[in-house]
Structures are given as C-alpha cells and as structure tokens.
C-alpha cells in the first residue's frame, strides 16, 4: 500500500510549493544518478561509487530553489563519486519487507546505505544482515556522536550503526483548517475533525501515543516502553469505533505530507521536523501534553553492499559539525552530532532556540521510547494494527 503512495512524490501537488520541493529533490537526485551512469568510478581516495542511499522523505537539506542538496553536492565533489539518493522509505515495515527476502537469502539488496528506526535497526542487526562499519574510515563520526546515543544494548560500540537524526512523534495540524491551536492527543478525536484525521500505520508510533493518552485517563498504567499486549488491546479497542465511523480516514506512512498539502488531512500523528521543513506555512507540529515518542533513525550498511567505503565516507561526512548543522537547520530534526547547537547559535540564534531541533527540558522529560518487542509479541501487535487498518 505505502509502496504505491510513495510514488506520489513525482506528481505536482497543488497549492503547496514546499511539497513539490521534496519531490523535486527526489527527481534531482534521480537525474544526477542518471547523468553519471552507474558504472563504478574509482576516485582519488580509492572510494568507488555510486553510493546507493535509501532515506525517508523530507530528510535531506535542499538549496533555495529546491533542485539539489548541498550536503549531497558537497559530498559528491569531495569524494568524486555520485550519490544515488532515493526517498524510498515511507515506513520501516514496508522497507523491511523489500529488504528481508534479499538479505535473508544472502543477496545484495542494491543499497549501500539505508536508514531505519531503532527497533527495526536492532532487528536487522540481530539478524546478521548488516555490515560492520570500519572504525578507521569513520573517525569523525566516532569522535562527534553524542554520548547519550552510545551504548545501546543491540550495538554498544557503534559497530553497525550511526544515528542519522532523532525526532519525536506528536500531533501535526493545519491551523487554518482546524480553526484553533491543538495541544494534546485527545484533540484528534474532536468531532469537528471527522474524516480529516490520519494516524501512522503499524503500531510503533500510533499505539504508544494513544497509550499515553489512555494512561492520562487512567485506563492504562504503563509507559510506552513497558506497554503489555493487554494495553495494546485497549488502544485497539479505543481506536476501533473511530475507524468504523470514518473519523480516522486513513493510516499512512510519510505520505501524510501530501495529504496535508491537499487539505485532505487536517490533524495527524506526524514526525516532528517534517511539517516545518516540507509542510505549508499553516501546518504546525506540537509536542502533545500527554507526552511524545522519541526515536532515532540510523544509518546502516546492508550485508553485501557494493560500495561500503562510500557509505562509510558518507557517515563520516555527515558527522562533521558544520555539515551536521547545515543538515539539521534545514530538516528540523534533532542532530546526533556534538556541537551542532553551538554551530547553529553562531549563525542563527532563533533557530538555536527551536524546540524541534533542541527540545527543552520540560519536553524531553515527557519523551518516551517506543516499545521494543520480541518477534512473537511484535507479530501480535502488528496484527492488532492491521485489523485497524482494514487489511
């Protein structure tokens, strides 16, 4: 389903020029890839390209005319290799489904670098589908990664992953359509928004957020990371009537950006930086009163990647403080790189105070990790989510 929606990027959405921007970036990257051909090109540093890089929409910086990305252009110039940058990931689950049959059979996935959220990154690392990152090739990354991102139990020494960005899941809305500012998760269920609400597909974002709301009402006692299957069942039972009545129009991946652009969605669960970087001027993101979900998306090199050195070069490149600051300033996500706050404060003090890039203590106190489930449990939750999604 999402796989199809993803292709919408290449049609011009009305009204919101910003969204066209994201699609143009994809087109530009595609054209860049075509222009150079795809044969291996040895460069001075002995790094071969092109770098086949799969990432999420609205996750790369763009030039003013939104036809190319300074980060990618500079990288290409520095290493003299092409970057085949594709905004092919709309949800973790869908992208995993495209990788699993190949990596599971020891075949090349065609990607040199992919970006997956913690729980999915942990799953593919445990499955042994990820190449070890060469520490010699990535000194900047090892030096600059923020300390609190180190020491995760699934990869304590950063052998297999480096964070791309962190972000939050919260409530996005179009202030003109809703006619008021929203502050909490419960606002999604205002009858005035019937048919204009979308949630995120799968359980990892939607279920913990609704869980936080139900916890506020005293119906669930656990925080998201400790939610049980019973809690998930309660979330399902709470949402079901809203799905049946058509209040919740759809479950989406990253393509909610298009629906905000066309006005078909007024209120939705969204990822924190997207609307700021790629939404319209009336689209807002709010950290809900009940709390928000914090996650980190990670760069991974799939097993058998043909241009592993190029991927390592990219990891090191985006951990350069200046490069990281430029990237974060455009995409409005939380950078994993030390010193980005100071770097941004030098040039743009307003941005340094932006809660999307640098959430304050009262917001971070209310940020909760996603549930980390074992395989069997994961399938049961996914089944609950599938039941809500109708397929």
């Amino acid at each position, binding site marked *: *389903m999402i796989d199809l929606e993803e292709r919408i990027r290449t049609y011009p959405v009305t009204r919101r020029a910003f969204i066209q921007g994201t699609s143009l970036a994809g087109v530009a990257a595609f054209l860049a890839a075509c222009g150079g051909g795809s044969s291996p090109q040895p460069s001075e540093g002995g790094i071969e390209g092109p770098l086949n890089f799969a990432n999420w929409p609205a996750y790369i910086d763009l030039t003013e005319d939104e036809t190319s990305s300074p980060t990618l252009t500079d990288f290409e110039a520095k290493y003299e290799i092409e970057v085949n940058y594709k905004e092919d990931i709309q949800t973790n689950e869908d992208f995993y489904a495209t990788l699993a049959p190949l990596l599971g059979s020891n075949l090349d996935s065609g990607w040199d670098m992919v970006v997956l959220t913690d729980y999915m990154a942990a799953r593919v690392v445990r499955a042994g589908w990820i190449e070890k990152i060469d520490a010699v090739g990535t000194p900047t990354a090892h030096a600059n990664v923020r300390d609190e991102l180190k020491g995760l139990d699934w990869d304590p020494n950063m052998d297999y992953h480096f964070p791309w960005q962190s972000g939050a899941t919260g409530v996005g809305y179009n202030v003109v359509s809703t006619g008021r500012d929203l502050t909490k998760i419960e606002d999604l269920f205002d009858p005035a928004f019937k048919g204009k609400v979308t949630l995120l597909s799968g359980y990892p974002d939607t279920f913990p957020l609704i869980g936080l709301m139900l916890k506020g009402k005293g119906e669930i006692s656990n925080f998201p990371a400790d939610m049980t299957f019973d809690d998930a069942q309660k979330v399902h039972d709470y949402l079901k009537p809203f*799905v049946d009545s058509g209040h919740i129009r*759809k479950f989406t991946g990253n393509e909610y950006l298009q629906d905000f652009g066309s006005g078909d969605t007024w209120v939705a669960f969204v990822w924190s930086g997207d609307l700021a970087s790629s939404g319209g001027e009336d689209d807002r993101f709010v950290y809900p009163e009940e709390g928000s979900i914090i996650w980190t998306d990670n760069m991974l090199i799939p097993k058998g990647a043909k241009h592993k050195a190029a991927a390592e070069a990219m990891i090191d490149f985006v951990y350069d403080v200046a490069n990281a600051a430029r990237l974060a300033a455009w995409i409005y996500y939380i950078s994993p790189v030390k010193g980005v706050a100071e770097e941004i404060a030098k040039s743009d003090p307003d941005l340094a105070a932006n809660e999307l890039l640098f959430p304050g203590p009262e917001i971070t106190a209310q940020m909760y990790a996603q549930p980390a489930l074992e395989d069997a449990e994961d399938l049961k939750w996914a089944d609950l989510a599938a039941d809500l999604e109708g397929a």
Partner: protein
Amino acid sequence: MRKSLRSRSAIPYLLMAPGLLWLIVFFVLPNVQMISFSLSEGTLRTGFTTPPEVWNFDNYIGGLGRFSDNFRNSIVYGGLATILCFLIGYPLAYSIAFRGGRWKSLLLFLVIAPFFTSFLIRTISWKIILGNDGPLLALLRDGLGVVPANFSILGTPLAVVGGLTYQFLPFMVLPLYISLEKIDRRLIEAAQDLYAGPWRRGGTITGAIFGGFLLVALQVGLGYASVTGEDPTLAAAVAGALIGALGGGLVGRYLVSQSFVRVTFPLSLPGVFAASILTFIPAIGDYVNASLLGGPKTQMVGNVIQGRFLQQNDYPIAAALAFILMAAILVAIAVYARLLGTEELTGGTA
C-alpha cells in the same frame, strides 16, 4: 516419406513449445510454490514449515473468516464497477459503432487515450479530482453548500467504485464495440420492415424495474459504509427505487426500440459477456484504487494479500487468500457463462 510425415506431425508441438515452456516456468511452477505456501505455517522472520511436514488448511478457513469483510468489499465494488461500466460503456460503444461515421477511429482512440499514462498516475489524478481541493468538492461544498466543511469523498466506497469504474471502462467499451460493429445492419432493417417500432410499454416497464433495482443496489453497495456517515434507511431505499424507476422508465420508453431489444442486443451478447468478464476480473482483484482512494473500511481482498505479502510477510495467509480469490472468480465466471449461455464460450458460432 514416413520420416517427413513424422517430423511434420511434430511441428505443432515445436510451435507450442515456447508458449508451454513460458507457462510452465512462469505460471505452473509459481502456482505450485504458492499452493505449498498456502498450506504452510510461520512468517518470513520466524521461518516457514512447508508441506509435507505440515498441512495447514486453517489458512483457508481462518483467512476466509477473518477477512470476510474484505471479500465482501471486493465482490460488491467489483460488481458495482462492472455494472456502472456497462451502463456507461454500452451506449458509448453503440454510438461509436452505429453513429461514429468517419470519426470512429478518433473516438476509439479517445477511449483508449487515458491508457497512455500509467495506471498509478490515473488513480492519483482521481485523488486530486475527489480530494479536498478538487473540483467536485469545490462544487458540492463551496458552490452549492450541500455538504459540511469536513466532508470527504476520499476514503468512501463511492471513491473506490468511481476509481474502478474509470480504470476499467475501456475494457468494457472495446469488446462491446467489436461485437456491435460486426452486426449485420440488414437484420435491423429487416426487423424495422417487420414493424419493430418504438418499444413503448415494454420499455417503460422493463426500464423502470431495472432502474429501480439498480439504484437500490448502488445504495446498498455504497451505503453500508455510507458516504454521508448515516446508515441507509428504508425511506432512502424507497426514494432511490422510485427515482431509479422513473429514470429507467423514461430511458426505456423513449430511447430503446424494439429492433434494438430483439436484434441488436441479443447479437451483442457475446461482446457483453467478454466485456463484463474483462472488467470484473481485474476490478475484483484490484488493490490500487482501494489503497489510494479508500480508507480502512473500504480495503479489498487485494489489499489484504498485498499487505500480508509485503508488510506482515505472512506468506501462508496471503497465498491462501489469493487461491480463494482465484477460485471465487472461476466459480463466478462459470455461473455467469451458464446464465448467459453464450455460444462463443460453449464452442458454437456466434
């Protein structure tokens, strides 16, 4: 002599060989694999246990039970789309075949023209047409003010059926056109010479019955998840039946002649059969329209199969559902062929 005869008798098999090989490699083998999957247990992540270790027929029974709503959606939407395609396509094909004159080729080209863009682009353009900023809502909501500000067409059965009807219309028109085009005009002239005039009384009654029935069918089909958010009421059904009957009656009385009913339509039946099969089969298995234009309540069985294969990696259930769908379509076609009894299908000459 003998030798050359024998080699000649081998020629048909040689000619068939590439096609047969193709079918074996790309149809038979995958289907054997799928049957094996449909009786297996497990998922991609946990690994599969396949026959002969396990014969898990519960995939079929459980799948049919759990996804009965999706099967119902497929049958209802596919059926409605086929009927709507027929109602739009038959007059269109008829006009092109009988009144097209020197514009025939151009008109046919226009019917196929949308096919020069991709299926996805066409569906997405419907998303724009029916969307919040689209022309339809601009008229209904902003122009006439008959629907509230948060009214959506996207996500309703109407959007899905509309999309399906649009997508598969050429599949209906082309076979109909071919069967209408080859009708011998002298038969119609002969019928008219033999006093086949306007079809007044019969047309009014038949048209009224069909029209009333159709509008109620549309209401029930589209109404159970309901465009307006309200459950369909008896009063609405009666009103629909009356409106349909009136429209159908008028069409039957003034637009249909006896020569059409007795000569043209029966002669075009093989085309009607082929066209409805060609429309119904892809429509019932479609998932793109429901995915892009529909909502959680309008997902068809194709969406379940796609989701189970590509999102949950639950191959056994997906394969079982695919076979159930295949069987259902085959049964439906067999029944339909029996009812319509077209000679082309039973081996006679048209």
